[in-house]
């Protein structure tokens, strides 16, 4: 697989964003229409009371040349959760999938904790207006911590294959303090669940489906899956669990695995190989991949430096 980088296509600081958001366009996720592509992303506000971030979902509609912006959403697409709910402090990311005339939005909801910074779970919101607004099916999540997945269930990516919903997602394996003077860091791995209705899910409880490349302290995030020529390909990002924010050697890179049976995955990070030129927008970090098909071509959206503070870019599959 050979990928050609097309550069950054969206910079959130160049647009007015809803919910008073100013920076970040993280984890782009597409909904393809006849004549344009809607790309959802997570952007952020700063909570004035404590300086902490809250993530909100917004979208940009873009021409099918994947270069020219038509418009950026100017309204709230989905409000944050109620007091004490799993998604009270942010939604990041939201994966969208068409189902009949609806669009199902699988949200990763964030809620702040005391001994650790956060916990997450996966919710379902449904849109009946082609993805302009989404309504929760309930205040709680559809996928949450369970017996062997003790924390941080999130980053759901859903694909309907045959009559089955498949979800690839991440689950936390635990929190660890790597140094006395730093807050605890988490580690998560990619798992898989199935469902007949997209609401009631059966997990493969804590089965890590992608082997580690960096050892037990590798964190894997944001799986995205596409079928190309009869084989399923998964892209995801991975990093060290410690010192990954500032140290580019420990930061996110994009990994890849393939499967012919949706159960056994072979890791092969030789693709996509999007190595950046020093000083470029994606030279220090590459993360939050999203793969999709549009007019017969396969594209990969992803974030660059600083987890997508200044937007996302695109690559196209050449062979």
């Amino acid at each position, binding site marked *: 697989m050979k990928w050609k980088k097309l550069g950054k296509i969206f910079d959130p600081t160049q647009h007015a964003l809803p919910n008073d958001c100013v920076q970040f366009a993280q984890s782009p996720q597409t909904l393809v229409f006849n004549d344009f592509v809607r790309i959802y992303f997570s952007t952020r506000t700063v909570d004035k009371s404590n300086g902490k971030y809250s993530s909100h979902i917004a979208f940009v509609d873009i021409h099918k040349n994947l270069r020219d912006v038509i418009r950026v959403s100017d309204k709230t697409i989905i409000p944050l*959760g*109620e*007091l*004490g*709910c*799993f998604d*009270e*402090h942010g939604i990041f990311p939201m994966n969208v999938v068409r189902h009949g005339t609806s669009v199902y939005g699988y949200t990763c909801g964030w*809620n*702040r*904790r*005391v*001994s*650790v910074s956060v*916990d997450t*779970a996966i*919710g*379902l919101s449904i849109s009946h207006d082609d993805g302009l607004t989404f309504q*929760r*099916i*309930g*205040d*709680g*999540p*559809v996928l*949450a*911590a*369970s*017996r*062997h*997945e*003790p*924390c*941080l269930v999130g980053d759901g990516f859903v694909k309907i294959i045959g009559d089955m919903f498949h979800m690839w997602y991440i689950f*936390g394996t*635990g*929190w*660890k*303090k790597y140094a006395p003077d730093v807050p*605890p860091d*988490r580690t998560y791995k990619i798992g898989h669940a199935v469902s007949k209705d997209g*609401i009631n899910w059966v997990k493969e409880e804590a089965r890590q489906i992608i082997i580690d490349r960096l050892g037990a302290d590798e964190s894997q995030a944001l799986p995205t899956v596409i079928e190309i020529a009869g084989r399923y390909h998964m892209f995801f990002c991975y990093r060290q669990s410690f010192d990954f924010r500032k140290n580019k050697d420990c930061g996110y890179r994009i990994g890849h695995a393939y499967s012919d049976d949706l159960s056994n995955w072979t890791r092969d990070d030789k693709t996509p190989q999007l190595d950046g030129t020093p000083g470029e927008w994606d030279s220090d970090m590459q993360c939050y991949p999203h793969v999709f098909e549009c007019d017969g071509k396969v594209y990969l959206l992803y974030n660059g430096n600083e987890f997508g503070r200044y937007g996302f870019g695109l690559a196209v599959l050449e062979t």
Partner: protein
Amino acid sequence: MGEAAHMFKWKKLGKVFTPQEVEGRSWLKEFAQAPATLVFDDFVRVYFSCRPPADENGQYVSYSAYVDLDRVDLFKVRHIGEQPILSLGGLGEFDEFGTYPVSVIRDGDEVRAYYAGWARCESVPFNVAIGCATSRDEGKTFTKLGKGPVLSYSPDEPFVLSGPKIRRFNDLWYLWYIAGRKWKMVAGRTEPVYKIRMATSHDGIHWTKLNKDLIESRIEEDEAQASPDVFYANGKYHMFFCYRYSSHYRGKENGYRIGYASSSNLTDWVRDDTKAGIDVSDEGWDAEMVSYPHVFELDGKTYLAYLGDQVGRYGFGLAVLDGTLK
């Protein structure tokens, strides 16, 4: 027939266990909450939840432990567990700050415990989910079945899954518990509203929620309900539970009282608090509130263990039924 003819007659026997009197256990200073029994040949093991002193921020953790009461004289304490039956969870786990309350049941050679695990949150004080642990030494020590919960949040049960009561009827596992409905702001403080719910399981690990409030609210829409204790007797299922107002419930006026409901099929319940037959006393340890009922049968008698003032800060007591549960 008047109401009195239908009302159960509970004769209060007094307070059985006072945590403040226990020595040599740093983790057991106050509270003996949510009693749950396991009957042995010559003693009754009563599990309860307790707390060491609050930390410098006034925050508590809670542990669960047991006291063995003499079967012939339930007011005679024979033994108190040397250690909590469960350790607190690890960093970031659902039960990092508390394992309370606990409900136990025999399962072959094992004893299984279902417990609520407490995490601390930023915008609200806590969140709770239900874990499971097993014992192979007659309920003295338990091993958790995992680092995460067996019953957690779902679309209709977004937070605070607590107060588990485990039962087996007709080869099926039943879990009664409470699920948070909303957090209510009362005088600058967040107060949880929760309702009684139920789930069933073939193995006690994988649960199917009924997704329904079992007990209609009576005193107000935001009535909080807890301790759904189900007992089968005389051809029907009896549930004793407790309920309180959503605001200013830490004193007598709006505090916990014990309610009652019955069912023939375990899913449809008819509430009739006038039958409960137990209320606050005129004076003494349970003059402000009564809560966390637990019914058990022993040597031909039916007992009710319950908490008194300050939701069991000073221990639990017993009442004995005059008559039968009908």
